[in-house]
C-alpha cells in the first residue's frame, strides 16, 4: 500500500513539473477577443484559383478527348486504306 502511495506521489510531482514546461512553447495567453468585419487575408479562400482550375480542367478534358478520338479515327482509317490496297493488289495478281 505504501509503495503504491509513493508511486502516485512521484507521478504527481512529475506531472506538476511538466505542466509549466509544456506551457512555455504555447503562444501568449489571449485576454480579449477583438471583432473584425472580414476574415484576415491569410484565412480567406481565394475564388480565382478554383474558378481558373474549373475552366482549365473542362477545356483540357474536352480537347484531350477530341485529340484521342481524332487520333483513333486516323489510325483506323489508315489501317482500312492499307488493307483495301493490299486486297486490291492481291486480287489483281
Amino acid at each position: 500500500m505504501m509503495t503504491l502511495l509513493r508511486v502516485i506521489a512521484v507521478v504527481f510531482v512529475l506531472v506538476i513539473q511538466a505542466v509549466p514546461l509544456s506551457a512555455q512553447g504555447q503562444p501568449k495567453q489571449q485576454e480579449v477577443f477583438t471583432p473584425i468585419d472580414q476574415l484576415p487575408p491569410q484565412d480567406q479562400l481565394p475564388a480565382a484559383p478554383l474558378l481558373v482550375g474549373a475552366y482549365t480542367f473542362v477545356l483540357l478534358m474536352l480537347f484531350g478527348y477530341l485529340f484521342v478520338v481524332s487520333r483513333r479515327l486516323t489510325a483506323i482509317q489508315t489501317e482500312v486504306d492499307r488493307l483495301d490496297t493490299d486486297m486490291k493488289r492481291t486480287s489483281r495478281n
Partner: protein
Amino acid sequence: MPKWFQPATLVCGAMFAISPWVIANAPYESTMGLVQKVFYYHMPSAWMFLTASVVCGIASARFLATGHPRHDRTALAAAEMAVLFGLLTLVTGPLWARKAWGTWWVWDARITSSLVGWMIAWAYLILRQYGGPGSEKLAAGLALFGMANVPFIYVSVNYWRTIHPATTVVPKLPFSMGFPLLFCLSAFLLLMVLLMKLRVRVAEEQARLDSIYLSLDEQA
C-alpha cells in the same frame, strides 16, 4: 464526315474561344461572388451529361427492339459522352462548392444520384469493353437504368433537403446571366453533337475494319 461537320467545328471552336469573354462580362452573383462563374461551364456540362444519358438509353432501347448496329454505335458514343460530361460536372461542382458552401462534397440527393448516373455510364463502357460476346445487349439494359435515373437527378433538389440551388434558378435568371448561360449551353451542345458524330464514325470504321479482317480470314 458530312459537309456540315467542318463549318460546325469552326463555329464551335470560335464559341469556346469567345466564351471566357462572355462569362467575364456576366455580373457577379450577390452571395457567392466570383466563384459563381463556374456555373457557366458546370451547368452546361451537367445538362450534356443528362442529355447523353437519355440519348444512350433511347438508342439502347431501339437497339434492343430492332437489333440494328447503328443504334448500338449511337448508344456507345452517348455513353462515352455521359462519362466525359459527367466527369466535368463532378469535378467543377466541388470546385464551386468549396468556396460557396465551404465543403468539397455533400452526400445530398442531387450529387449522389449524379454520381450513381456517372457510375452507370462507366459500368456500360466497362461491360462493353470486357463483357465479351453478347455484352452489347446487357449494356443496353444497363443504359435503360441510366436513363431512368435522369429525371430523379433533375427533380431531386425540389424534393429532398439540399443546399443545391433549386430548378427555379435558371428560368428566373436575369438576361445578363441568362445570355452567357445560353451561349455556353449552345457551345457545349454543339461540341457534344460533334464529338458524338466523331465517335460514331470511329465505331463505324472499326466495324468496317473488323469485317475486312473477317473476310481475309475466310479467304485464307
